């Protein structure tokens, strides 16, 4: 495609096609979108973050990431659609316009680029990073067990061959460390949404402990509202609640760390589907998935904008 209008959002794309898409979007919308490289993956791929901003310095911000588990292809595809949606709706959708007039949005579409490349060329079911583990023939760390929040506890594995291997130490993966450094240096993140697939859930902290967060009531009510709006489009059924109560105990997870950093509106999605396809979601499901998820995203972003803290 020569521009982002011609990009086929209804199909899955290679990593280079997504990198090109990002550059096109920036070139087409220089007043609104910029690209920040927050680091490099283990294999040297850039960790690109799109920044949507209407100006100002260090504004309160919303973080969205997709594809930290590389095989969850509908997430990278949805992230690409979100990026285009933001530039299309800014100036025409009053809610998004109000958000962007006060806040910045950061979007990392391919959070685990080495893994994503590997799913497209070697092993479609690859979930982890691609950093070798010394003393083991098994490669990679689960980047959603590598955060410094109950690191190495129940719901993560110390075995490098496991799909939930936590890594040798918290933030050992550059894909994770780069976000940690960026979030800390930014210092004004107000919402953090990490997007996974599948099983149709909207989750909030914690995953490593059954102790509820001090904001549980508000997070639960907001999740309920977001899910209601998501379901209104196609009737897709979602469950919501804390990670440990709704899916399973998981230590070292992304949003437990972000919440403990003081980012109150920390959520993680599990997008379509309920089990017929798992991670092999047919391409004709991409647009419905992205569109319904966007309604929930907007609910969270609007609430964040209206409830500064």
């Amino acid at each position, binding site marked *: *495609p020569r521009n982002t209008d011609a990009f*086929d959002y209804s*199909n*899955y794309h290679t990593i280079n096609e997504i990198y090109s898409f990002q550059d096109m979007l920036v070139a087409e919308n220089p007043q609104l979108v910029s690209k920040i490289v927050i680091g490099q993956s283990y294999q040297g791929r850039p960790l690109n973050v799109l920044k949507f901003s209407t100006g100002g310095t260090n504004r309160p911000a919303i973080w969205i990431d997709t594809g930290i588990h590389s095989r969850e292809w509908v997430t990278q595809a949805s992230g690409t659609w979100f990026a285009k949606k933001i530039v299309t709706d800014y100036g025409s959708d009053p809610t998004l316009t109000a958000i962007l007039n006060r806040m910045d949005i950061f979007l990392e579409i391919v959070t685990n680029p080495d893994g994503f490349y590997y799913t497209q*060329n*070697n*092993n*479609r*079911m690859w*979930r982890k990073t691609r950093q070798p583990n010394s003393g083991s023939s098994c490669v990679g760390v689960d980047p959603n067990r590598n955060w410094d929040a109950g690191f190495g506890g129940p719901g993560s594995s110390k*075995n490098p*061959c*496991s*799909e*939930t291997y936590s890594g040798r130490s918290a933030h050992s993966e550059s894909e994770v460390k780069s976000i940690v450094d960026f979030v800390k240096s930014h210092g004004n993140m107000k919402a953090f949404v990490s997007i996974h697939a*599948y*099983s149709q859930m909207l989750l909030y902290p914690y995953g490593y402990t059954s102790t509820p967060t001090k904001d549980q009531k508000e997070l639960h009510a907001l999740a309920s509202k977001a899910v209601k709006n998501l379901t209104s489009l196609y009737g897709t059924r979602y469950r919501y609640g804390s990670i440990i109560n*709704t*899916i*399973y105990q998981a230590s070292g997870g992304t949003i437990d760390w972000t919440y403990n950093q003081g980012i109150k509106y920390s959520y993680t999605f599990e997008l379509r589907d309920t*089990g*017929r*396809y*798992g*991670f*092999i979601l*047919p*391409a004709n499901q991409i647009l419905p998935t992205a569109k319904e998820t966007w309604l929930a995203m907007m609910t969270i972003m609007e609430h964040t904008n209206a409830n500064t803290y």
Partner: protein
Amino acid sequence: KDTFEGDQVLRITAKDESQLALLHDLSEMEMLHLDVWRGPTDVATPVDIRVPFHSLKSVKAYLEARDVQYTIMIEDLQAVLDEEQTQMRMASRAAE
């Protein structure tokens, strides 16, 4: 290139807490090389596990011996992946 010929994805339903505990044990048996897509949490939520072809017999025997219900969610994972790849190629040609 890794392939998944003969790998199946099983959807397993625990009927009570004791069966849930059995599924916890199963998911931690490293020698089976299981890939837990959705882990055991409560009896109302099914557990989805990708089982490599070489472990299918052991896993099914483990479940059947303990009267744990399961269905085959994906019969042959590689077949679904091949179909996905075909669709991607067709989409790419159409775009060309």
